[in-house]
């Protein structure tokens, strides 16, 4: 028999007993490493005029969290998304981001809806060294000087939308155009891009009419537009203004005389305005729930949303969903929550496909390239159920030529 001295035996027992006791007394401490939740901050305009679209973003993000946690979280850690109301104001967005980073210790930020708010959020995340995936439309966020190695842009922007929709319209709707646009950044960008696409393609822009945002009165302009006889009328008119615009255009009988095009369709705006307002209007989109019929990931996404919320997801839900999943993917690739490491990992493994088809990050500007679709509003009699407002006309695959080049955006 090996000589186990009493001292050694007592020591061993003591140590074991101590360990067992420690387990019992401080189980949280021992299990802590790896079970602290992975927190992602999500500022969005829960109050304000775009609350309905923010609700769409939120639903998408929540579905992503459910999915991640159902498969055990990320690197064994449960994912938690903290939503904060940015009120559609940059100062509030900045403060909420500070609260998320400093007060809540979030390691990443996904979010933003308004262009100016996401800029303010971006200034905070850049300085705090936290990865930010913006899901707001903006040309500047992925260009110098605003962008950074840890600033990613998941959503579309006016350049891409304009080139895709404008390009398709040139091939399919006509060659003589009139553009009505809201006199602020988004409207002006759309006007510039559409005009560019049309003239480069050999078409004509018969006229361009700016109007002050928030004052959708077009009665004086419409007779002139009618008289010029464009084949296509482009309306870069956002939100509620857009609904007013389409109603006035219809009341002048112009829907029968020319084709109507807008940069993007939004399911919830269409529900608000009604099918008769949006019928026969063409526009682009990043996602539409009827894609579930042809794409397995889309079906999974749509089914999950219908089951949990009773409401289908739209473009912004898709961004929210994809944004969160990309953070998770980056962390798992980098095996770290360090923002720079995650950014590098995403750039090194840029392709992904979460809900609608292949997407990829461009290396120079962290811009996501993705498929788009052209939709056409259905007549009220053709609307399917509560949400079937659009026909899918065609898909436009992701293409770098639809965006400015790296050099044009200031990246060397």
């Amino acid at each position, binding site marked *: 028999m090996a000589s186990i001295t009493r001292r050694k035996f007592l020591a061993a027992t003591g140590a074991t007993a101590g360990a067992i006791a420690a387990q019992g007394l401080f189980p949280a401490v021992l299990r802590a490493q790896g079970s602290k939740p992975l927190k992602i901050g999500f500022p969005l305009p829960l*109050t304000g005029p775009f609350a309905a679209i923010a609700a769409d973003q939120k639903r998408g993000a929540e579905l992503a969290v459910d999915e991640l946690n159902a498969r055990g979280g990320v690197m064994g850690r449960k994912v938690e998304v903290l939503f904060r109301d940015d009120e559609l104001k940059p100062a509030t967005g900045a403060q909420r981001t500070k609260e998320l980073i400093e007060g809540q210790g979030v390691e990443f930020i996904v979010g933003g809806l308004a262009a100016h708010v996401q800029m303010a959020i971006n200034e905070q995340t850049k300085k705090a060294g936290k990865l930010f995936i913006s899901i707001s439309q903006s040309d500047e966020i992925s260009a110098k000087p605003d962008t950074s190695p840890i600033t990613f842009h998941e959503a579309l922007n006016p350049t891409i939308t304009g080139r895709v929709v404008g390009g398709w319209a040139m091939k399919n709707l006509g060659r003589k155009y009139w553009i009505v646009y809201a006199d602020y950044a988004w409207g002006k960008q759309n006007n510039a891009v559409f005009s560019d696409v049309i003239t480069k393609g050999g078409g004509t822009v018969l006229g361009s009419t*700016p109007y*002050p945002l928030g004052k959708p009165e077009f009665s004086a302009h419409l*007779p*002139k537009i009618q008289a010029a006889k464009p084949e296509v009328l482009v309306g870069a008119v956002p939100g*509620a203004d857009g*609904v007013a615009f389409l109603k*006035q255009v219809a*009341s002048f009988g112009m829907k029968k005389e020319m084709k109507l095009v807008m940069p993007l369709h939004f399911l919830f705006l269409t529900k*608000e305005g009604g099918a008769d307002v949006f019928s026969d209007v063409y526009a682009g989109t990043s996602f539409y729930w009827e894609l579930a019929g042809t794409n397995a990931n889309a079906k999974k996404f749509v089914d999950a949303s219908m089951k949990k919320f009773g409401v289908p997801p739209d473009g912004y839900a898709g961004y929210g969903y994809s944004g969160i999943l990309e953070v998770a993917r980056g962390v798992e690739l980098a095996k770290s929550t360090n923002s720079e490491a995650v950014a590098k990992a995403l750039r090194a493994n840029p392709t992904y496909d979460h809900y609608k088809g292949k997407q990829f990050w461009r290396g120079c500007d962290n811009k996501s390239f993705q498929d788009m679709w052209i939709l056409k509003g259905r007549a009220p009699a053709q609307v399917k159920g509560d949400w079937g407002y659009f026909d899918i006309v065609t898909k436009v695959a992701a293409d770098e030529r639809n965006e400015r080049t790296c050099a044009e955006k200031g990246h060397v």
Partner: protein
Amino acid sequence: MPDLSLTAIAAQLFTGLVLGGILVLLAIGLSLIFGLMGVVNFAHGSLYMLGAYFGFFLWGFTRSYWAALLLAPLIVGVIGVLVERSMIRRLYGRGPDDPLLLTFGLSLALVEAAKLVWGKIGLTLDPPAQLAGAVDLGFMKFPAFRLFVIAVTTLVLVGLWLFLEKTNVGLIVRAGTRDPLMVRALGINLDRVWLLVFGVGTAMAGLAGILAGPLRGVYAEMGVEIIIECFVVVVVGGMGSLPGAVVAGLLIGEVVSLTSYFAPKLAEIIVFVVMALVLLLRPSGLLGEPGLAE
């Protein structure tokens, strides 16, 4: 440079009348309430918004825009009276800022309350089928509903004028606007008159709302945006002056419309430029009485 044809300018002038009409309805209410009671009603915009929402609700309920048009302003007027009775009444004698602040808080609360009740998504209020198309005026086509708005505004103004000029109560209101102390000294109970004025003023805001609904859509923030324009109109016309409110409302409506057409960038700022110019040249507004608002 946009089209300088007569048609286009005439069209824009007509549009200006529509906007002006809405502003006049709002401004008269605000001016009446201020002139008679010294209360700056910041919640006026929210009551306008409620007019549109109640209009939507009643239209859904009765399936008749006409019924909604009649009832929504009444409901808003009743709400106005309740607010006056329960809250603003307590603030008399405290100084001019307190009612302004109270109504400011009220406007914040009402916007959120509307969203809680009717949801965050904006609503669609359609004009009745009879007014849905465009009317051919010979030299231009103009949406029928807008003409209707101009007509209703004119009717209401005429009715109001008749009320103020031809009835005893109207006489008291006019006198009370000029010199409340004297009217009281003459033994007239101003409290009931104030109640009536508040009710009428807020009802007009509600009417403006249900008229504006089909034009701009129905959404919770609609009052916030128009209240500032409304204040400008009242100040330009002269606080407490009803003719001033009418003149200023139409003027501002036309100025905004024409600017939107010729120089869209300036459309937001032009109201303030006009106001600043008017105030610097005529201290109490176009038709206001000096000393009324200090």
